[in-house]
Structure formats: structure tokens, C-alpha cells
């Protein structure tokens, strides 16, 4: 029989909290983490708002040498991983060779890249910091987590823009199913708030310019949505083979029962017509989980608040589940409060989805007031809602046409 994979630890540092409990509480309460940008001077940007991680000082977490030699994106991955690993109670209860790490990032160390590029231009290439390459590369977060946790099993990164950490969890689940590890730290992190990071997304016209009202700027599925709100952070889950978890008496948050991964093969940034690729990912995830559309109770949508995503994802959900069923379930976007954490989005949303299942409460699309024409599902606007949930899907879609859907199940014992 196929191995069962469960989530036994969670960690996150986000615009709405420095830990998972804080982030979950803010998300349920619909408290936005979006403010005017402070990490970079936003004056020249059309979009001047962001989901920044607040009250964060890397020196509170890492020794000074390490704090100086890690990019912000790596720090987020390490801090989320430490929280998840401590939460799991795995320390000393797994052989390091059987513990893996799959931590992705959409961009990697862009803060470091910009700083050292400036050094090269202004002072010459000989002044480039010797730590530049190992600080900037988008796999170094996974490498650092491996060192920090002493995880000596499989270790790599998934780089699929906003789907990066969705892919990390999907692939990690399969790796454990195949017996390549007993447990894996899976997730992602992002620190894109730099001149070119923000400037680049502004140039694409992808970001909300609702600068006068940051807290409601990320408004997925609303008729007045005008782009996503760029955000930062890190999120990691501990995925563990069920028997391994039970043998050590671990707490189980939820079960990862399947995933679906597809490509639009259509356009570098726009979703395919009617979210065809995303619909197939949802269908594949249900198939992998061995469930029918009728059994799905909740979908944590990618729901970015861009004009194109939200309408196409809505159509995709109807295609995947059938229109009548799609109208009977709860669909929400927690990006309404976190903003879009890019490479960390899939993992923090998987955490929120697992909490929704275990606690029987659906987090809201907090900022939704006037659903757009065609956006006609139950998006749980404004307030969280109690509901008995068994199966849920979590969607992540990335530039490049990458689609990944995770299928999660409430853990109801062996």
C-alpha cells in the first residue's frame, strides 16, 4: 500500500506574524499586513505598498557572522525551518541521513545581487564580496537549512516563481512516498523588496497601485482589484511518513493526500484561456488523492488580486469540480491579508489550509466587498467561517505557466 504523508511541524515568518500562530490568528481575523513600503524607498514606484515582515532583526535569530553572510531570503527560510523543526519534535528522533530539505524561492538573493552589482560598478569587480555567489544563488536557502538543522538527506530547491513552495511540498510528498526520505522540510522563502525586485514587477504592471489604502489593496476576486501586492517571508512544513510519525507519537496537523502539476505551455505571465492548465492541476491532484470533486470542501485559491488570475482561476475551479459543485464550496484567498509572498506563498497557504482542516474554520478573503462579474463563487468574504472540512485543495500558479495543486485531508487517525 502507498505510504501516507502527514504534516507534523509548521513554521512561518510573514507580513502578518513572526510565527505560525501569529500569522494564522491575523489571517483568521482578516488583519492585513500590507503597509507603505519601508525597506526600499517607494517614491519612484507606481506601487508603493508591500507586505513586509515587521519588527524583524536577523540578529535576534542568527549569530552576527551568519546574519551578515545570509541574504534576507535565506534568513526567512532558516527561521521558518527552525520553527517547523522545533514544532515537529523530530530532533534526535530521525537519522540525519533520512531527513531531507526542499526549500524553493522564486528569485533568490536579489538584495545581495543588487548590492554587489553596485560595488562592481562603483569600485570594480575586484571588490565583489567573496560570499556573493553563495549568498545570492536560489538554492542556498536549502543548503543553509541543511547545515542549520543537520539534515543530511536529499536537498534541493524548486524555482517556479509563485509556485515554488507549492512544488516543494508536492515533490517532497512524492519523495517520501518513494522511500527516499522519512521526513522532509518543504517550503519556500522570498525577499523581493529591492529596487529591481519591485521595479520589475511594477514594469510588468502586475502590482496594485492602491497606495492610499494599503490594507485593502490586495482584494482577490473583487471588481476593483488592480494587481497583486508584493510581499516577503518564509514558510516551511515538516512532511513525514505516517508510520514514522506515529511511532514517535508526533502531533499531526493534516495529511497531504496528493498533488497535481501542469504547465500552461501558453504564455510567460498570463494564464491560459479559462485557466485550462490550473484546472488540469486540480483534477490531477484529486486523482492522485483518489477523491471525487464531490468530496472537496474548501479551496485555498492562488487568488492574487490580478485581473487575469482571479477570473481565470474561478473558471478553472468550475472546470475542475463542475460548475454546480464549485458553487457549493468555500474558496478563499489568504493573500487578501498577507499580500503575495511569491516563492513562500504556496507553503504558507498549505499551512493555512491544514489549519482550516484541523480547526474546522475557513479563513476569509478578508478584503472582498464587491465580487467581480464572473467571480461568482463563495469566496468567504470579510469574515472567517466555521465549517466541517475533510478535503481541501491549495492552488499555486507561477510565471512560466507553472501550476501546482496540493490535496490535503483532515487527519482523522490511522
Amino acid at each position, binding site marked *: 500500500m502507498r505510504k501516507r504523508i502527514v504534516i507534523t511541524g509548521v513554521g512561518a515568518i510573514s507580513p502578518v506574524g513572526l510565527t505560525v500562530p501569529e500569522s494564522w490568528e491575523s489571517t483568521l481575523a482578516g488583519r492585513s499586513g500590507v503597509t507603505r513600503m519601508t525597506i526600499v524607498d517607494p517614491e519612484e514606484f507606481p506601487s508603493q505598498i508591500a507586505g513586509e515582515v515587521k519588527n524583524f532583526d536577523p540578529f535576534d535569530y542568527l549569530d552576527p557572522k551568519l546574519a551578515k553572510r545570509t541574504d534576507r531570503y535565506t534568513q526567512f527560510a532558516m527561521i521558518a525551518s527552525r520553527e517547523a523543526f522545533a514544532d515537529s519534535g523530530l530532533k534526535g528522533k530521525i537519522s540525519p541521513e533520512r531527513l531531507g530539505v526542499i526549500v524553493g524561492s522564486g528569485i533568490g538573493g536579489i538584495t545581495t545581487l543588487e548590492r554587489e552589482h553596485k560595488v562592481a560598478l562603483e569600485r570594480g569587480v575586484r*571588490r565583489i564580496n567573496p*560570499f556573493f555567489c553563495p549568498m545570492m544563488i536560489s538554492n542556498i536557502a536549502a543548503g543553509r537549512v541543511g547545515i542549520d538543522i543537520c539534515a543530511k538527506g536529499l536537498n534541493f530547491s524548486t524555482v517556479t516563481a509563485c509556485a515554488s513552495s507549492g512544488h516543494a511540498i508536492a515533490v517532497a510528498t512524492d519523495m517520501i512516498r518513494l522511500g527516499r526520505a522519512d521526513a522532509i522540510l518543504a517550503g519556500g522563502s522570498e525577499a523581493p523588496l529591492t529596487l529591481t525586485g519591485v521595479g520589475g514587477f511594477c514594469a510588468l504592471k502586475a502590482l496594485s497601485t492602491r497606495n492610499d489604502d494599503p490594507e485593502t489593496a490586495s482584494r482577490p476576486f473583487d471588481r476593483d482589484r488592480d494587481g497583486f501586492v508584493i510581499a516577503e517571508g518564509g514558510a516551511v512544513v515538516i512532511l513525514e511518513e505516517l508510520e514514522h510519525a506515529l511511532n514517535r507519537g508526533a502531533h499531526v496537523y493534516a495529511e497531504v493526500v496528493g498533488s497535481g502539476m501542469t504547465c500552461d505551455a501558453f504564455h510567460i505571465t498570463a494564464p491560459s484561456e479559462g485557466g485550462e492548465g490550473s484546472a488540469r492541476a486540480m483534477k490531477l491532484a484529486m486523482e492522485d488523492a483518489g477523491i471525487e470533486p464531490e468530496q472537496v470542501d474548501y479551496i485555498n485559491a492562488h487568488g492574487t488580486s490580478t485581473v487575469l488570475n482571479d477570473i481565470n482561476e474561478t473558471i478553472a475551479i468550475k472546470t475542475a469540480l463542475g460548475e454546480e459543485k464549485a458553487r457549493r464550496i468555500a474558496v478563499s484567498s489568504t493573500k487578501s491579508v498577507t499580500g503575495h509572498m511569491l516563492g513562500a506563498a504556496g507553503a504558507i497557504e498549505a499551512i493555512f489550509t491544514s489549519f482550516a482542516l484541523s480547526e474546522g474554520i475557513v479563513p476569509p478573503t478578508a478584503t472582498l466587498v464587491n465580487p467581480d462579474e464572473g467571480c461568482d463563487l463563495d469566496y468567504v468574504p470579510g469574515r472567517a467561517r466555521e465549517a466541517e472540512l475533510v478535503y481541501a485543495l491549495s492552488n499555486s500558479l507561477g510565471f512560466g505557466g507553472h501550476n501546482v495543486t496540493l490535496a490535503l485531508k483532515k487527519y482523522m487517525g490511522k
Partner: protein
Amino acid sequence: MSLESRVAEIIIDKLGVKPEQITAEAQFDTDLGADSIDQYELIMGFEDAFGLRIDEDEATKLTTVGKVVEYLKEKGLD
């Protein structure tokens, strides 16, 4: 500030070591825990702070705190 203190300050900043660990005899690798990349960065730190260029052959000989101070003095710094 003396040359010794300026050198110590750079080492403390780059390697994250404690002031009391810094003695003339302290070896960068074994006593102060610096790997090869740490040592490149340290050399660059000295170059920036003292406005000179240390070529690679010379750099490989600067294995202790004392040797760095001596080298800088030879270069006319104090």
C-alpha cells in the same frame, strides 16, 4: 586608534569573534575559525580600511593577527 586596534576591529566585525580571542599569535584558521572564504573577505577588509592592495602571494602569508600588523607597518602604516 592604534594600528593594532584597527586591525582587531576589522577581524571582530568580519569573523564575529570576541575581542579577547585576538592576540598577536592567533591563527585565523585554527584559533579564529576562519575558512578560506572568510580569509579572502578579511584581506579585502584590510585593503578597504587601509587603502592598499594586498597581492595573493602576500595574502597567503598573513596567517596570524601579528603577521597582518607587521605587514601593514612594513607598508608604512601605523
